[in-house]
């Protein structure tokens, strides 16, 4: 039901998430923000089991901040992704696993932009583009076809729009709005919400 997508460019990462919070067949909230700011240049997008998502994401968020306080500098995106994966993996074989699917997007001074795909079985993969949810089945092929590593910011947003138009056309569920954010060396920028129009 929920959808996450990330696209990495030369010097930025573009991410988007849908805004619906649902309970069974009812839309409880249409402006839910599924992105968590881990630090000035890292975002964690988190979907999955209700409750687990916020609990896990906030736990990681506070631990990343604690690292900053203790050491005087922030964790790199790669380190943050691996830290998250380890936590997820440790909880996986406990009585209380977290059932969450994640995208971690960040910008590192030395390594540049990075997008990390993580799933509820604690798999971690660095990828140029990634998506979570049923919508991924419909949009990964579009990304395969049109993605280039040297996308500009505008081209990446256009590619994102293509994906969302496809969801609007072929996905059984109505996802009326998507939060969009971009991370580059200046930090995290909020872009305009995408709201696909047209008859379904």
């Amino acid at each position, binding site marked *: 039901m929920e959808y996450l997508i990330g696209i990495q460019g030369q010097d930025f990462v573009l991410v988007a998430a849908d805004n619906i919070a649902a309970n069974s067949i009812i839309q409880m909230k249409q402006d839910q923000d599924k992105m968590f700011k881990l630090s000035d240049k890292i975002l964690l997008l988190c979907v999955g089991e209700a409750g687990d998502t916020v609990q896990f994401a*906030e*736990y990681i968020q*506070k*631990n990343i*901040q*604690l690292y900053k*306080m*203790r050491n*005087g500098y922030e964790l790199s995106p790669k380190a943050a992704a691996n830290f998250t994966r380890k936590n997820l993996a440790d909880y996986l074989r406990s009585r209380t696993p977290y059932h969450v699917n994640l995208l971690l997007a960040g910008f590192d001074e030395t390594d540049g932009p990075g997008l990390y795909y993580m799933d509820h079985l604690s798999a971690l993969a660095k990828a140029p583009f990634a998506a979570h949810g049923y919508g991924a089945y419909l949009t990964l092929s579009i990304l395969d076809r049109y993605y280039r590593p040297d996308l500009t910011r505008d081209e990446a947003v256009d590619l994102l729009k293509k994906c969302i138009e496809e969801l609007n056309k072929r996905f059984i569920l109505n996802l009326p709005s998507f939060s969009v954010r971009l991370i580059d060396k200046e930090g995290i920028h909020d872009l305009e919400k995408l709201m696909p129009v047209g008859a379904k």
Partner: protein
Amino acid sequence: GDHCVGIRGTDIVVLGVEKKSVAKLQEERTVRKICALDDHVCMAFAGLTADARIVINRARVECQSHRLTVEDPVTVEYITRHIATLKQRYTQSNGRRPFGISALIVGFDYDGTPRLYQTDPSGTYHAWKANAIGRSAKTVREFLEKNYTDEAIATDNEAIKLAIKALLEVVQSGGKNIDLAVIRRNQPLKVTSPKSLVV
């Protein structure tokens, strides 16, 4: 321990510490007496550095834990109370020795009020407008009692100057050995030497 002064201004809080001169071969960076506990709170201490590291770590964890459970940053009083309670527990039970540090904790509460608190090994804490801890704390405090006026803290720069002047009463070698930490309302902590801050 070494000298340490704290001033509560109207829009700024200042901590000044004496930077002990290090041995020729020692790397200066490893001796840090002013520590951030969170984005909006910091503390300086006088006493056993090793004990301070433990207290500071517990405070940092508590700052994040508080944010996680109640979704709000700690108030300066809350984290001071937490540190003080920790210190008191080590005076009463389990046969442990008390933490050998006094601390000055400064910051801004969520509503924008500046705060300065002092704790000591017994676990008591009090709020202050300006205070000093360390070897000649009495001398510095007397200086502050004479010179802490509304005009003296009227602007940010004046408050910083007062902190430096108070430290210069007891610090031997002059301005080179002073570390300053400054928090302005809604701005992160800045740790610097006096030259770069005061006009």
